């Protein structure tokens, strides 16, 4: 099943924890249930960002590695 995203944010090159912070700020600007696609660097961002988003109640639908980057699909919390 393909999940369509409502918004995209490329956080490659943004250091931790600013990447997680920017993802949270963007998710909070979306309506509940909308999906945000995130692109992250490999390494610490691929761990810290999804964990932080889950802690705030957002749902990580996809967390997938693509060569040297990670793609996350995150549903904004209700």
């Amino acid at each position, binding site marked *: 099943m393909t999940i369509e995203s409502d918004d995209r944010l490329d956080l490659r090159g943004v250091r931790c924890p600013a990447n997680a912070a920017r993802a949270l700020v963007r998710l909070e600007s979306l309506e509940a249930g909308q999906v945000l696609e995130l692109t992250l660097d490999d390494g610490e961002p691929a761990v810290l960002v999804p*964990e932080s988003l889950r802690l705030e109640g957002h749902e990580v639908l996809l967390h997938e590695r693509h060569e040297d980057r990670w793609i996350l699909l995150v549903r904004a919390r209700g």
Partner: protein
Amino acid sequence: MATTVYLDHASTTPVDAAVIEEMRAALALVGNPSSTHVDGVWAARALELARARVAALLAADPDEVVFTSGGTEANNLALIGACSRGGAPSHLITSAVEHPSVLTACDWLESLGMRVTRLPVDREGFVDPDAVRRALGPDTRLVSIGQANHEVGTIQPVDEIARVCREAGVPFHTDACQSFGRFPVPAGALATVNAHKIYGPKGVGALRVPPGARLAPLLFGGGQERGLRAGTPNLPGIVGFGRAAERIAEEDVNRIRRLRDLLVARVLGGVSGSWLNGSRERRLPGNASLGFEGVSAWDLVRELDRAGIRVSRGSACSSGSTAPSPVLIALGLPAERALGVIRVSLGHGTTQEEIDRAAGAIETAVRKLRQA
């Protein structure tokens, strides 16, 4: 004791209650916004939300916002940062009516071998964009002209000056502290803004650094703010700045302008030998720079203060000086007239009753001082 009338908003504005509330919550955040644990994430979220809010008011990308300790640091970063990237000493263009944080930075750069052109202004305080064009040279590294004058409120033709610079391929910087939130900042310009002129806290500002701008930092350390401003950020202050940037849209500039015009009309009509400095049409809505023949502005500010009316002489940053304002001298005022000028500046809390009281107090004070 009678209530006071605060008419010094160009020096600083009272902090909005909603700003204080959000700053209080930010003070309770434990983490450092650079720490890579969850408390760091929460602190960084507050920082990035503020960045997004300030960026929105600048019509910029959040990546372009570099937080600083205020307008002075942002002006210093723009000027010294642009001119200290290495290479041969080069050329900088500014005007004679800039804020001291621009002009003294220029003095410093000049002492290091930079060539500085300080463009004159006309009697209303305007910089001529053609004069900027004529002053540009192959070694010009930056043009810095403030968007609105801090003393007389004149709004410069910054869009036209920015276009002249763009055509010449020279970066343009504008000190937009007085105009932020009231007038759009020119697209693509380096721009200085701060919080305490928009009902936010003192001691926090930002420099908008557009893509491609090349600056050297003033502070070195942990690489915060894209390496342009090291040091743990002033998180409560920045949070307050973000909230203030969101709230300033609610300021009713038309109401402020109407009250300002009323005050000017009352004073000019009621006090002989009085005049308004700057442009009648293209000026900040809350600014009234008023001069009085045969009166010392220092004495007038004291007299009004005793009557509960808070105004200032010139800019707050130089109002301790006994010399005539360089801005007023640049507008062509003789020194003795420049020494008789006060700045009255209104804000969104100013009322018609306060304006009536201030106008009456000015008339009374001037009459008393002239009789003394």
